């Protein structure tokens, strides 16, 4: 094909454009109305500031959104991620329990199980739950929302059983580095999310997985007929979603230094779905943009931080939240685009 035959694409047709506009608008608002929002300070060799704070706090949601994006792209949904977070939080808290020992004459807390091993066990358990979701959806053919609803409900019970209904406090100092430590002056959680995002992007774009996933999401029958293993691909998505939820649970536990099976990750699955949708991805599955999803997660966290810093009471916050979501989502609706095009056309005529 000659170059002149290539389709001319306006910048607004790229999926990433509108979520970026949404994020930019939020930041612009902060630039004007929030004092010292963009100020970065260095204290004790660490960077501090609202921007860093947003990135740090968004890390849990971004992890969940990565898994959620794959699952919804495959034509399903995973509403159990909050409960899997709670399970993994309880699990790691129990595994890391131990007793105070005198080491070199100092009182020091020693866990029963080494941190690394505890993390691997916890992630393994989270993946097991992801696998269960995947098998229920692909092998048994349950509707995704029903299959994962089972774990949404049961998962919180399991988490409470693990901790016998108690809030467990964690004392393991090295473990706190995950959610509270700094590397090169930046919060360590940012590096975790960055690494997971990078690996997933490689998996999507450097293997045919991304193409297969979109194909399955668009049309399962056609995908099977052209030789894709639809069941395996589906299971992989739920497996990754479970793994991401496990990591999110560990990260959150490390940050707050305790595990509360009742509240940990409660309703956060809705935020992950919202991040996916705000990004202009289709809830029907198929074509998706992982990068846009990440921007979606950042929008949600920026919104939250902004409203906190404005001192808006929580009950009003939900309403403001909803309004912003409506604006961003309608920016991407085809109808609104047509109306905007019409307005431009008539404005141009006059």
């Amino acid at each position, binding site marked *: *094909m000659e170059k002149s*035959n*290539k*389709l001319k694409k306006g910048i607004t047709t790229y999926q990433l454009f509108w979520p970026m506009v949404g994020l930019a608008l939020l930041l612009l608002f902060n630039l004007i109305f929030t004092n010292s929002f963009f100020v970065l300070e260095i204290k004790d060799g660490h960077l501090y500031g609202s921007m860093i704070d947003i990135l740090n706090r968004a890390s849990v949601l971004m992890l969940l959104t990565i898994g959620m994006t794959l699952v919804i792209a495959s034509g399903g949904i995973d509403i159990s991620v909050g409960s899997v977070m709670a399970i993994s939080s309880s699990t790691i808290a129990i595994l890391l329990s131990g007793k105070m020992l005198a080491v070199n004459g100092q009182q020091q807390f020693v866990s029963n199980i080494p941190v690394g091993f505890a993390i691997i066990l916890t992630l393994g358990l989270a993946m097991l739950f992801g696998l269960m979701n995947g098998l229920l959806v692909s092998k048994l053919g349950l509707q995704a929302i029903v299959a994962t609803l089972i774990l949404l409900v049961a998962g919180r019970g399991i988490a409470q059983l693990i901790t016998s209904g108690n809030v467990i406090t964690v004392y393991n100092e090295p473990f706190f580095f995950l959610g509270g430590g700094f590397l090169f002056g930046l919060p360590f959680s940012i590096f975790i999310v960055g690494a997971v995002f990078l690996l997933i992007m490689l998996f999507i774009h*450097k*293997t*045919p*997985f991304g*193409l*297969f996933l*979109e*194909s399955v999401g*668009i*049309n399962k*029958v*056609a*995908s*099977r*007929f*052209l*030789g*894709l*293993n639809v069941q395996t691909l589906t299971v992989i998505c739920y497996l990754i979603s479970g793994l991401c939820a496990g990591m999110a649970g560990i990260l959150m536990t490390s940050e707050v230094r305790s595990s509360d099976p009742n509240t940990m990750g409660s309703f956060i699955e809705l935020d992950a779905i919202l991040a996916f949708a705000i990004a202009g991805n289709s809830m029907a599955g*198929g*074509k998706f943009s992982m990068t846009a999803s990440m921007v979606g997660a950042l929008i949600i966290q920026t919104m939250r931080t902004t409203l906190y810093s404005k001192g808006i009471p929580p009950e009003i916050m939900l309403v403001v939240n909803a309004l912003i979501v409506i604006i961003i989502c309608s920016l991407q609706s085809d109808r609104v685009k*047509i109306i905007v095009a019409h307005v431009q056309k008539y404005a141009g005529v006059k």
Partner: protein
Amino acid sequence: MIANKELLIMRNISKNYPGVVALLNANFNLKEGEIHALVGENGAGKSTLIKVLTGAESLESGEIFLSGNKIEAKSPHHAQSLGISTVYQEVNLCPHLSVAENIFIGRQVIKNGRIDWKEINTRSERSLARLNIKLDVTANLDEYSVAIQQMVAISRSLDISAKVLILDEPTSCLDKDEVTNLFNVMRMLKNKGIGIIFITHFIDQIYEITDRITILRNGECVGTFETSSLPRVQLVAKIIGRELEEFKNSVFTKKDMVGTHSTNNITFYSGKQIGRKGTIDPIDISIYKSEVMGLAGLLGSGRTETARLIFGIDKADSGNTSIEGKEIHINSPLESIKIGMGFCPENRKTESVLADLTVRENIVLALQGKRGLKKIIPRKVQVEIANTYIKLLNISTPSCEQLMKYLSGGNQQKVIIARWLATQPALLILDEPTRGIDIGTKVEIQKIIINLSKEGMAVLFISSELGEMVRCCDRMAVYRDKKKIAELSKDEISEQRIMHLISGG
């Protein structure tokens, strides 16, 4: 006949899609009590014209008048309330609702604050009776064949008081009797003064039923003609826009193309007593290399079912299968593909096309699926493969990065064929590859089929059009009522013979 008052006028309609001008200053007039054929190759702009009329696509420029009033339909529902009803090419009803629910969806009959099911059911039965169809209207729609579903869709449109009725290739899935029924109903409506826009690829049907013909080509109006004064050959020439001589040359037979070529009878696929309860009785079938094997029969007679068994979509519950003499068990399409099979299914929209992906992605997917997750085809090679087949099969698209949904039906079908050719199959199964496709592309696809077999490929070919089957096939299995009733050798194949067998006479 009722006075010929203008019912619908469409003037200077234009519409652009990304990279394609779909319609350019098209004009279309419809009179009361007229059956008006709208014809043209795929991508000529028929569907676009209808979509603009029914509000499925917005009007970019031009004017539409209905009974003298200027209208602009905002949505198909709005168009319906204006009196414009459509029955689309592929049935667009709700398969999980009952027949009656489908006929009355959106306009429930309310009695005492509740839906009056009894009334809905009797009225549904009555409206179906007008098509000479008797059904259990409380059964789910998907329990019926595609042909019946089509009739329900038509019946729904008839039931909504329509001034203009659009039938978008309603007959492509119907058998002869059903077509006769439909035509009777169309004549009845015509006498009531309803204007009918009839979109079809069947030349015979145009001459049987229509009063006038409007021809579109490449988004522009070629013209409107009285059916009785336009000779068939000229109609075809105007549709495909080629010189008459060239068209005559493109009507060919396998013998013309192949000359002294003879099949060498090396078996690629052999099935012994393969069958599946409820769908097809056990049959013997073998497919040779360098040969086009045809499966003839009516819809649901077992021809598609055989193809699905061979390709491993459905599992056979009896019999043995062997490939090149080696016994083999096929459990999934992927296994068949690895053995060297390819399968273009009957329903493009639901079983093969991935509308939101690009042409390139649609073409490389089967090959990539065959290679698995580990060995990705580099982007550059993907583009090369796509462009090779775009050129080879003469696929009309601005680039290989065009989204599949913007291609016309015929070009989509070529992309699906390209998808399988890219895997270099030893056996290619084509189930109705030319359905709903214009004459020009049909001839091209037939030539591709014959050429492939000449190059050594085994081809299993299924089609409802006996003409093209006779032209292309070296051997043929004939089906009736889920049974294979005969196998014809090349010299025995003729339209009369096949029809005789199918009808059971």
